[in-house]
């Protein structure tokens, strides 16, 4: 019976640990969503807060259906901080008929420009000029463009929401680590330090090679 007692105690400790982690809303390393190459996130935080009523497109814009039927669109937190601090320079102008995949926002990382694409077809009804050229602290409160769109529900299955969105952003942040290492001016230094996690600097882009923004658009902002 001693053997059974000790084994039960061993398994009990492991089970309690899993329960404690579940209560804390964390993953045990063995059970967290896996990624093919690296399992740690680049950012200090393990999770990004995802508002429940928001959808995410693969091009790192978020969408929200308003009560008046208009779709508010903004840039998600990942897009805002991926290569340092993003400032939005331009939005699609009011009255413009946007096709899915056309430029909806133009931003800047340092002195490099980057384009975000419209996730749906629609007509631009209003533009939030308050976000232009400013540092955005809460990306999900600060919409950039409101569209009148008829095909939101048709495209809904291509968007992420809830846990699916959370897991997708986590995978994107892991992919970003790979991206930064491969585009770093000092690959060895980036490779060694990236494994330890940490936060991105505001001028990450300055530490990357020249064509990094173009490659970033291809890898992260295409739909």
């Amino acid at each position, binding site marked *: *019976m*001693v*053997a*059974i*007692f*000790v*084994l039960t*105690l*061993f*398994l009990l400790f*492991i089970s309690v*640990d899993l329960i*404690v*982690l579940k209560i804390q809303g*964390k*993953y*045990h*390393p*063995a*059970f*967290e969503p*896996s990624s093919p190459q*690296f*399992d*740690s*996130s680049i950012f*200090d935080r*393990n999770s990004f807060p995802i508002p429940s009523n928001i959808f995410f497109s693969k091009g790192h814009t978020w969408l929200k259906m308003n009560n008046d039927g208009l779709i508010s669109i903004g840039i998600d937190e990942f897009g805002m901080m991926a290569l340092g601090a993003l400032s939005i320079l331009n939005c699609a102008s009011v009255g413009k008929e946007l096709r899915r995949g056309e430029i909806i926002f133009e931003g800047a990382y340092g002195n490099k420009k980057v384009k975000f694409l419209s996730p749906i077809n629609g007509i631009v009804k209003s533009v939030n000029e308050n976000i232009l050229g400013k540092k955005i602290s809460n990306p999900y409160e600060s919409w950039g463009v409101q569209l009148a769109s008829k095909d939101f529900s048709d495209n809904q299955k291509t968007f992420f929401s809830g846990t699916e969105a959370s897991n997708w952003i986590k995978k994107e942040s892991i992919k970003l680590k790979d991206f930064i290492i491969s585009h770093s001016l000092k690959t060895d*230094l980036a490779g*060694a*330090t990236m*494994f*330890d*996690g*940490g*936060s*991105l*600097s*505001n001028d990450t882009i300055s530490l990357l090679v020249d064509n990094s923004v173009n490659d970033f658009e291809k890898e992260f902002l295409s739909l």
Partner: protein
Amino acid sequence: MKLKSMNIKEILKPSFWKVVSVIIVTVGLFSTYFRFSLGLGATTNLQDSVPWGLWIGFDFIGVGLAAAGFTIAATVHIFNIHKYEPLVRPAILTAFLGYSVVVCLLLVDLGRPENFWHPLVMWNIHSVMFEITWCIICYSTVLLLEFAPVILEKFNLKAPIKFLKIISIPVVIAGVLFSTLHQSSFGSLYLIVPGKLHPLWYSSLLPIHFYVSCIAAGLSMIIFESYLIARSCTKEDGFCNTGLKMNILSGAAFVVWIALIAGILLKIYDFVSNDKLIYLIIPSMETSLFYLEIIIGTIVPIYLLSYKKFREDKKWLYIISICVISGLILNRLNVSITGLVASSGINYFPSFDEISITIMLVVLAIFAFRLIAKNFSVFVGGESEEAASNISAKKSKQIILSERYE
């Protein structure tokens, strides 16, 4: 020297496991006090007919799980398979802490602990216990020498590191010899009780079985620990920070698979050649525990490890490592307690003090492992151990960079 990670505020911040650990250690310290003030008779359920109980069982478990120390060191430094180099330091640390727990338990278990030094000067070369004592002392010293560079690196003491590197190969070879000797001699210890140990476990091959099973369990322990340390780093870092990649863990799991197959073949040969198959169909508690040991610790892991998709899957690798460790726990306790208690005619179950002291020492070992792993370059991600100090320097720089970014 100020250690960056040893932030007092962080250490004092309460968490579930910290509170549980403090309770366990406090209770354990009281039990230790009672053990030394009142004696073995008053605080344990050990008797003349059952002189070895939970503590001896745990000694076997601790030594068995520490076996990765010599396995990995030999693989990397003697057989030159450098793929497994990132496992060397955690394996040696595990072995050292495992042996430290064993030494502490032996001191608690000795009726006259103040006489612990007697085997060093009063040689009884015909005793298995004499060999075990000497091997444990010598191997603990070897482990200390093997792990010393990790500590010295932190304080940038280059001269002693250089000296330790010069003597490293003879030290590793000595470590392999000592651990091979006493891992198997734990099995030899039970060869002297053929009439008392249950036939399901008694075998003339017991030393070989102990040796083979400790290789599988020791490597599984390293896999389990890599998750343990990743779990403790999850908050600020992530699994990758341990420097242990899944391909390395999967490689170690493959060796576990080979060792488990060797172990079961050995067992089958033993049962067939010694006509012991009859004992497998006699209904008894011993038979049930034997089946449990074989199914959990051998059959299930062999089946799962035979599939590459399970070997390379984080979740399954964790489950498999738990199974193999459970198998070793059952085996060593079955040999040291279950298999002997039946013949003694006494139903032994450890006392509260025995249990609390044991758990306290395990908790302290886990705490020490976590503390050392977090503050020294134990998990090195580089291709060579020599690069560890450079990585350590880069890590220091990264901490400063992170502060600036924050």
